[in-house]
């Protein structure tokens, strides 16, 4: 009975959603607004927001990858909030999975092929993750994917070696240092120019590694932070093993 009701509700919702989204065009060019006065540029303009980002983004931020420009520069304060949500969630997982009586679970050893292979691959995967977040302002990628790749390399070690444990103290130290870097860079911007997260370093030439001011610094910090938090989540969910 409950299944039938749920199925009917689901089909009704599907029809409502489909009717709602039938009017939104797919894959068409971004439309212009009617003319309006833009107080920042001090002129009339008819650009929508993404067109504004795509037109002026390279000059405003110095980054080549516009997604990075939006995440770190235009919406940097949002990203600070999101990283805080991530921190709270990983703290919650750690505190909920904490066991006092340390019930130890028996784990079988994995075989020699898996152990040797994962020892070989671990370094390469960490290197790839670091590449992703260091080049976040030039190529696709950035702190969030890089951190996820680093955490998956630690997951490989956890799966291959039953007794492996990442040291909690080192994870805590790297996580807090990365968070501090983010906030200190933001506060330096506040001191120098009066805006939180102001891009105070020189932009340099676009498409070069040392360009875009503080964006690479912040993205490296985000990468380290996300990596250590996700590793902490994996460690907590894994439990105590023997």
């Amino acid at each position, binding site marked *: 009975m409950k299944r039938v009701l749920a199925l009917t509700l*689901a089909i009704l919702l*599907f029809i409502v959603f489909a009717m709602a989204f039938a009017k939104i065009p797919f894959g068409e060019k971004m439309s212009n607004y009617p003319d309006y006065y833009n107080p920042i540029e001090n002129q009339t303009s008819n650009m929508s927001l993404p067109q504004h980002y795509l037109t002026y983004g390279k000059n405003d931020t110095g980054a080549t990858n516009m997604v990075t420009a939006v995440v770190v520069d235009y919406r940097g304060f949002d990203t600070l909030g999101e990283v805080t949500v*991530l921190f709270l*969630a*990983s703290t919650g*997982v750690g505190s909920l999975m904490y066991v006092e009586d340390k019930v130890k679970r028996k784990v079988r050893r994995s075989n020699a092929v898996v152990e040797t292979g994962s020892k070989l691959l671990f370094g390469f995967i960490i290197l790839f993750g670091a590449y992703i977040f260091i080049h976040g302002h030039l190529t696709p990628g950035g702190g969030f994917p890089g951190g996820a790749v680093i955490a998956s390399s630690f997951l490989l070690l956890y799966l291959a070696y039953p007794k492996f444990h990442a040291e909690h103290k080192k994870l805590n130290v790297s996580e807090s240092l990365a968070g501090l870097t983010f906030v200190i860079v933001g506060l330096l911007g506040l001191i120098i120019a009066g805006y939180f997260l102001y891009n105070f370093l020189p932009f340099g030439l676009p498409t070069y590694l040392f360009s875009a001011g503080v964006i690479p610094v912040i993205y490296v910090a985000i990468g380290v932070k996300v990596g250590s938090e996700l590793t902490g989540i994996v460690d907590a969910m894994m439990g105590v093993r023997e």
Partner: protein
Amino acid sequence: MIPYYYLGSISLVVIGIYIVIAKKNLIKIIIGLDIMDTGVNLLLISVGYVKNATAPIENVPGPYVDPIPQALVLTAIVIGVSVMALALSIAIGIYKKTGTLELDEIMGVEE
């Protein structure tokens, strides 16, 4: 005529809602929430797509797709997995206390 990308992502969301309403197992409900999350992400990205455009990386010329939904979804995915881990750890705590994952049995044990 609705675009097929919207239809796919709407059906993911609806399947997630169906799981959350009809199923009684806690882990199944968490899987349903994950499916809903993925559907919303796909919907946002497909709204921002522009035909014959490239990714918003300005090494190459040409029209670009909308960068704002991509920036939204980039953070939403990472937050989604951490929130899912939080929900799973709460479910494990409930299992340790009551010995079951079925919702109606949990209601019976609680008293």
